[in-house]
């Protein structure tokens, strides 16, 4: 099968869906040249550097029957637009009693590992998970980003796509023929029987490396990529934990109140899963510090395969 990059796959998703539906608008501070060439400047718009305004505009467009994609670039710039995303996009379907649909898609990059320093290296998805009314996807492969964005563009709700900054250039197989990936279906990236490792975003790859290493030590790890955080495939994770009796959650985001906390709370407060747990679950997360600039500091701050191996062996003891 042909291989394309993650970013190309994302662009294809938008192209295909924009072809299907002319009532679609794309907004971003940077020129999306490929899209503008095909769909013209009316639909593919360059915005001023004013995130709250074009996120707000997306809501008004939706209220008037359009679908939109707003590419905010780095999630840190999303903090400038929190008011529109959290107070409005997330809530108005509900507070207006379901009168209108708000199919708005916000794309933001997350993650560290490129010396972007504290401001530019954040993974704030748990904040958005705490705000009902948003759907949240976390695509980790070119295949997934295309299928999930296409699904997002047919969903009638605000969807936030958090895409790891370092995955944009990654290549992978993407079929030519159309496909969609449903929300709320996790993907078991590796089968295993001793321990369940739930890994988020780019950490899926570190977890797979760790699983390889663990296998060499006789530990069979199952690696689950939830793919979407809201809705979350609770069943897949609980089923796996019931089988393995052990849980490790890996996330690059800061540990406290991150998505990993939610996953652990979800599993341990499930009576069935709790009964089957043979050991205390473990978190392998970003340290509770802003991301430092200097490479040795940054490496220390975020998880890697080695740290996952260590924590998993701790859980196996």
């Amino acid at each position: 099968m042909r291989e394309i990059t993650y970013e190309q796959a994302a662009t294809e998703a938008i192209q295909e869906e924009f072809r299907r539906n002319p009532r679609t608008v794309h907004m971003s501070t940077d020129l999306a040249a490929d899209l503008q060439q095909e769909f013209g400047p009316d639909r593919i718009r360059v915005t001023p550097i004013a995130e709250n305004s074009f996120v707000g505009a997306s809501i008004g467009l939706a209220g008037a029957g359009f679908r939109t994609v707003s590419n905010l670039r780095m999630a840190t710039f999303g903090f400038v637009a929190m008011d529109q995303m959290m107070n409005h996009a997330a809530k108005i379907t509900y507070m207006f009693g379901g009168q209108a649909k708000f199919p708005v898609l916000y794309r933001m990059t997350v993650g560290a590992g490129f010396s972007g320093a504290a401001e530019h290296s954040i993974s704030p998805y748990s904040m958005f998970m705490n705000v009902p009314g948003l759907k949240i996807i976390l695509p980790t492969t070119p295949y997934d980003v295309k299928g999930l964005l296409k699904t997002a563009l047919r969903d009638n709700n605000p969807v936030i796509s958090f895409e790891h900054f370092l995955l944009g250039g990654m290549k992978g197989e993407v079929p030519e023929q159309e496909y969609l990936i449903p929300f709320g279906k996790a993907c078991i990236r590796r089968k295993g029987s001793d321990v369940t490792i739930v890994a988020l975003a780019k950490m899926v790859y570190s977890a797979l490396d760790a699983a390889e290493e663990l296998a060499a030590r006789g530990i069979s790890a199952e690696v689950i990529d939830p793919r979407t955080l809201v809705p979350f495939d609770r069943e897949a994770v609980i089923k796996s934990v019931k089988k393995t009796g052990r849980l490790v959650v890996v996330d690059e985001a800061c540990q406290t109140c991150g998505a990993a906390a939610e996953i652990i709370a979800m599993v341990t407060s499930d009576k069935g899963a709790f009964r089957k747990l043979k050991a205390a679950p473990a978190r392998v997360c970003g340290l509770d510090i802003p991301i430092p600039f200097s490479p040795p500091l940054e490496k220390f701050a975020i998880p890697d395969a080695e740290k996952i191996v260590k924590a998993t062996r701790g859980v196996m003891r």
Partner: protein
Amino acid sequence: MDLSKKTLIDLYTTMLAIRRFEERVAQEVYAGNVPGFVHSYIGEEAIAAGVCLNLDRQDRIVSHHRGHGHCIAKGADMKKMMAEIYGKKTGYCKGKGGSMHIADFSIGMLGADGIVGAGLPIATGAALAAKLEGKGKIAAVFFGDGACQEGEFHETLNLASIWKLPLLFVCENNHYGVNTSAKYSLGAGEITRMPEAYHIATRSIDGNDVETVYQAAAEAVAQLRKGDGPYFLECKTYRWHKHFLSEGLEDLRPKEELEAWKRKCPISVFESRLIREKILTEGKAKRINARIMEMVEDAHDFALSSPYPLPEDALQDVYSA
């Protein structure tokens, strides 16, 4: 432009409808019968009436925390409004929104919003939709002097300006944000200096004179429909009640100021004029009033007799299907 008799009577009727509705709501709020925060539009009726009577059903508006007047003027159903204010299942938002979040998408009322300034960017989206649809539709956004202090105001002026959006900015300058005078909090002094900086067509008018508002809005809307880009209408006015209806809340505005503005009541001054000019008779005014009172009472009865939503209804409408 001389307004037709019908238009003048419509303006009068619309203002009166807002006034009577708001009076009824206030009465119930102070009697402790209404949950939540209610921001009264009394004193500012000429703006909603004067602007909205220039709009078609297909034109879209975005409103703010003080939004009942805009709903009524855009043609919303008082029954569903009142039911919403009471948190009833038959309300516009099935009781989920309350006074601050009434919307009626079927008449292009895209909703009231409780975050100061936040309706502005949303309205640029509605205006862009109108522009893309290319049928001469427009959008209008109502906001206060307080909203002009938020960054979202600036971003919206800029976006509307560069995209030449068919957006009517309606600034309801009632001179205060809660208890803070706009004289203190707006460095520009005259609000219009800000949109002017963005080359937006701008006019500042007496927001208590409904005919002035109507004529100015008519001119603005005509320009907007031609696709000449946004228009900014500052309407000077005053709110009669406290920031929101509440015994406990302080009102630090000078008493005399309020009294002076009450003498410029948008309704009674206009009514006297219509009667003086024989467009209206006292009898007709009474009949209009009676009809409105009846509508308001019907709406109130409807709200009172409507059921509350079931607790489990809370789980619906978080997501659209």
